[in-house]
């Protein structure tokens, strides 16, 4: 699927912390992964695992009391962590844009659709005439399946699906290379969600854009993405192409998660796996591997040391002691077949 992989964005040891009354929360803890050109990467995890923080950090949009405390984000050869405010403003929107869960809070209620799109164009390309911008906007909006006469509508006059498509349009109008969709389909009804998923796939084809789809909906990721990154308690615990993740999950959390999600097929998965416990509080994350208190395979070493994010087969990384050697470990290390 993703054979000739050209890297668009390299994330290296990225950390984000929030300062709270109860102490420092390490929402994203030294995470490293790549986003390839033209791929749909699904970033899945439960609430509080840091996936939204991760998405915002990629655009350096973490607001106080949160702070990016370390790491690099290399985009097209440049570390955007070194950018100043002006460079960042240009970077956001033009290179990477973001779609959020609730389009109603992202769209300006007193601005029409055409005004939104024209503004987006003219902020980044002030020399563009309004008529030219309008023409571009109309073409794009139609491509997204919204009729031309809807350009004059205000956000509240549109349906939820249409609003979300307008948001997608705002992301595409400047030819961004990467669109971060943070729970973009979550507030939509299932049929509208399915249609938006189809559209996102189509957009990837038509605009040759990369998509980072952040969601808690694992089934949606199976439908939509080329690769999957699974997050748990501020770490990416596994990353691989979508088929191997679902066919043969390696990390016990990935496995537990997949076994616990409902499947509508009548003959499949009649009983759900009941994962013990609940996701941890990140002010005091568990020692060692953060998943060890809920892990059915936990060994003594798991609570002592944090495992590396090891490449077990080409293109597949997993953060688990089951697959890593260590002198203090008694159990045999599992070799993964490619």
């Amino acid at each position, binding site marked *: 699927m993703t054979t000739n992989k050209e890297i668009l964005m390299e994330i290296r040891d990225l950390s984000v912390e929030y300062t709270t009354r109860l102490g420092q929360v390490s929402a994203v803890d030294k995470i490293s992964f790549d986003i390839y050109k033209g791929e749909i990467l699904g970033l899945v995890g439960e609430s509080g695992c840091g996936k939204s923080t991760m998405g915002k950090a990629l655009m350096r949009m973490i607001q106080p009391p949160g702070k990016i405390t370390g790491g690099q984000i290399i985009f097209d050869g440049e570390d955007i962590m070194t950018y100043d405010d002006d460079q960042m403003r240009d970077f956001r929107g033009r290179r990477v844009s973001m779609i959020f869960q609730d389009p109603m809070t992202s769209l300006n209620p007193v601005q029409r659709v055409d005004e939104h799109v024209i503004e987006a164009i003219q902020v980044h390309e002030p020399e563009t005439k309004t008529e030219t911008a309008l023409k571009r906007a109309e073409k794009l909006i139609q491509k997204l399946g919204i009729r031309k006469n809807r350009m004059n509508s205000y956000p509240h006059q549109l349906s939820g*699906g249409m609003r979300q498509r307008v948001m997608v349009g705002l992301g595409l109008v400047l030819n961004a290379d990467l669109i971060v969709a943070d729970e973009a389909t979550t507030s939509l009804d299932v049929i509208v969600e399915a249609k938006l998923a189809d559209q996102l796939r189509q957009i990837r084809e038509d605009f040759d854009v990369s998509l980072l789809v952040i969601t808690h909906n694992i089934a949606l990721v199976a439908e939509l993405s080329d690769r999957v990154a699974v997050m748990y308690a501020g770490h990416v615990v596994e990353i691989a192409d979508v088929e191997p993740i679902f066919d043969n999950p390696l990390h016990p959390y990935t496995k537990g998660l997949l076994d616990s999600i*409902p499947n509508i097929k009548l003959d499949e998965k009649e009983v759900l796996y009941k994962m013990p416990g609940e996701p941890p509080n990140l002010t005091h994350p568990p020692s060692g591997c953060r998943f060890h208190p809920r892990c059915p395979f936990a060994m003594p070493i798991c609570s002592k040391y944090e495992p590396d994010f090891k490449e077990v087969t080409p293109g597949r990384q997993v953060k688990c002691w089951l697959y890593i050697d260590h002198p203090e470990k008694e159990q045999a290390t599992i070799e993964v077949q490619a």
Partner: protein
Amino acid sequence: MTIPSENQNNEDYLVQVTNLKKWFPVQTSFIDQLFAEEREFVRAVDGVTFNIKRGEVLGLAGESGSGKTTIGRVTIGLDEKTDGEVIFDGINLSTLSQEQLRKMRRRMQVIFQDPLASLNPRMSLGDAIKQGLEIHYPETKDQHRDIVLEMMEEVGLSPAKFFYNKFPHQISGGQRQRVVIARALVTKPDLVLADEPIAMADVSVRALLLDLMVKLKNDYNLTYLFITHDLATAKYICDRIAILYLGKIVEISDLREVYAHPLHPYTIALLAAVPVPNPHERREEPMPKGEIPNPIHPPSGCRFHPRCPYAQAVCSEKEPELRELRPDHLVACHFAEQFLDS
């Protein structure tokens, strides 16, 4: 054919709902009301008929705006109905006085979606659960604490003594939903209205909550009216399911029957839209056009016809009635026969 009137006195049914309607008046300004020819209504529920057998879990499924929550609320008398009849355990609820209805509430409890919004932030968990007992069983006051502790253990808030004096903000989301479940069950109800009870919970916690609900249902001989937008989750708890569209039931039968042999084009689309956690089985078929329309002016005839790929002229003229096309499987579509073979 299961026409509910035939089963009027059937002891098997705990709840019999006939032609239930709930219309909400549209808020307009006084001036508009003066000049308007007639008052406009949101037809949230527009004539639904269903029964719930004792010990059964009936699912009400549909998209937002389909009226599923309103049906639940009106059925147990939380909202007043516009028209129709609700018979609970042989008693017509509209014949009851306020006082009698209040007593009846002991037997009909609710679990809402958001446990944090359902719990008083300044009331300890034990006190919150105890409240129902104080209202409905004032005579056994000295046993209340023990009953509550026992109930808390039942729902997995263990050790109960540790949780009794905690407050909602001190526990996790999954535990909060357990408190809400305990509070609903402590009055020993017959019917529990569960309105998206696990939708807010984390994926890894949902399976535990579902399991708990099934266990409690068996232990306490409960009947559930289970409201959900998630057809995949419904598979794990519902015995029967009613698919709603714009205030109407379009299809109702055993869950497995509906999922295996959907007969309404809307049900077919809805089932196909649910993503399957298997990248080898990606959906190919296109989705119906448009979105759920405005319930103030619902489409004429069959309400699904503007979005239906199989619609014909009659669909916009004549409203289809629910009819039995397979044993105990009702569908409201003029052309459902074409799906019998597939």
